[in-house]
């Protein structure tokens, strides 16, 4: 049996009071000594920042498993509010909206078993999410990675983070080439 899928529709401009949640960007347990920061700006085809993009991140568990752990958006059954993550479990899932400058910040642990964080991008004006990857440059063997090694150098660079300081990595996303910068490589999974 093969059912026809329900079509995607844009996330629109008003998801902001519904989808982001406290600690959505804090995937690493608080105070974890190996915590890394990945941050950057989402740009459109005019080079302008996109202030209403929603990014989601997914990565394997600290043991490299792909099963995931619940508790990313832990709720408080007493008040109906948010408790935040429990500070111990690593759920592998992060969600962060860009701010008025198009900027996002994610705090997580380095991926285990692979060199990349999986990223999806939603935005007003975007009919269906885009998938991309943020490869941490220092733990990526470009020649050994089938995806990266298949890309021309300019395009390849769009998937690699830039190390700004120890444990601080920059990863900008360009939804469309703007005449100066390469468009980020977006992925599909057949």
């Amino acid at each position, binding site marked *: *049996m*093969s*059912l*026809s*899928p*329900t*079509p*995607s*529709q*844009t*996330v*629109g*401009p*008003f*998801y*902001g*009071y*519904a*989808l982001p949640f406290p600690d959505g960007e804090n995937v690493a347990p608080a105070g974890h000594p190996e915590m890394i920061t990945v941050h950057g700006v989402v740009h*459109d*085809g005019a080079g302008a920042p*996109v202030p209403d993009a929603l990014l989601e991140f*997914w990565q*394997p568990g600290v043991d490299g498993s*792909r*099963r*995931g752990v*619940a*508790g*990313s*958006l*832990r*709720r*408080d059954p007493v008040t109906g509010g948010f408790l935040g993550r429990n500070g111990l479990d690593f*759920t*592998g899932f992060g969600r962060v909206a860009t701010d008025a400058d198009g900027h996002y910040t994610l705090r997580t642990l380095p991926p285990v078993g692979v060199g990349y964080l*999986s990223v999806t991008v*939603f935005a*007003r*004006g*975007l*009919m*269906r*999410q*885009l*998938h991309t990857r943020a490869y941490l440059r220092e733990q990526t063997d470009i020649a050994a990675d*089938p*995806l990266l090694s*298949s890309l021309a150098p300019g395009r390849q660079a769009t998937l690699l983070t830039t190390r700004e300081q120890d444990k601080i990595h920059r990863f900008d996303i360009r*939804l*469309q*080439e703007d005449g100066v910068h390469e*468009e*980020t*490589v*977006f*992925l*599909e*999974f*057949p």
Partner: protein
Amino acid sequence: MPLTQADISAEISQAREAYLKAVAAGDPVRDHPARDYAPYRSSVLRHPKQPLVSVGDPEAVELSGPVFGVTDVTALDHDLTRQHVGEPHGERITVTGRVLDRAGRPVRGQLVEIWQANASGRYAHQRDDHAAPLDPNFTGVGRCLTNDDGEYQFVTIKPGAYPWRNHVNAWRPAHIHFSLFGTAFTQRLVTQMYFPGDPLLPYDPIVQSVTDDAARQRLVATYDHGLSRPEWSLGYRWDIVLDGPAATWIEEGR
């Protein structure tokens, strides 16, 4: 000259005819909207121009996904009419359906999130400046986990239509935004549910961005009188099928 509905409607029918012609000539049916759908003006600078790069790696992390559990929802999250001291204005409805993968298997224990405007067509969002009243008893956010049959259910009120600035006299048909997770990150779906018989559907470039007639119809819920409750609420049914790579359909469901 400001864009009129007639301009946008002409673009909508051109895009649909071009699609029908392409399918007649052998192109595949397109279930999802093209990302560069110009009648929706915000798409113009926000879609990639390069083709997507195909990742066939069976070990790709995207073939697994995050999980959610009972700690991620509270018992009241599915009832948007009970999140405040008083009752919201509007027509009380229930919306229910099953979440399936393309192999027809229920998607179990996964998070469904919704958000919507109130009965007057106003979002509880600071940037919504539509001159319609806010409802102190309605925020318009709900969550639930699918059960073992893949079912979700929400109690809410029917949202109102609202104006937007795509073109002069642009109005969104009544809709509920849905966000869904499957068992793989590639199955992630954000979409919108519409109501049957809404006269605004043909005019709306967001609905019409789905140029395939059968696919577009799948965005419209069915009124189900059997789901309506006497002296209480009207019932709508809307089943959702998550897309995803072929690899995820043949795995064991969980």
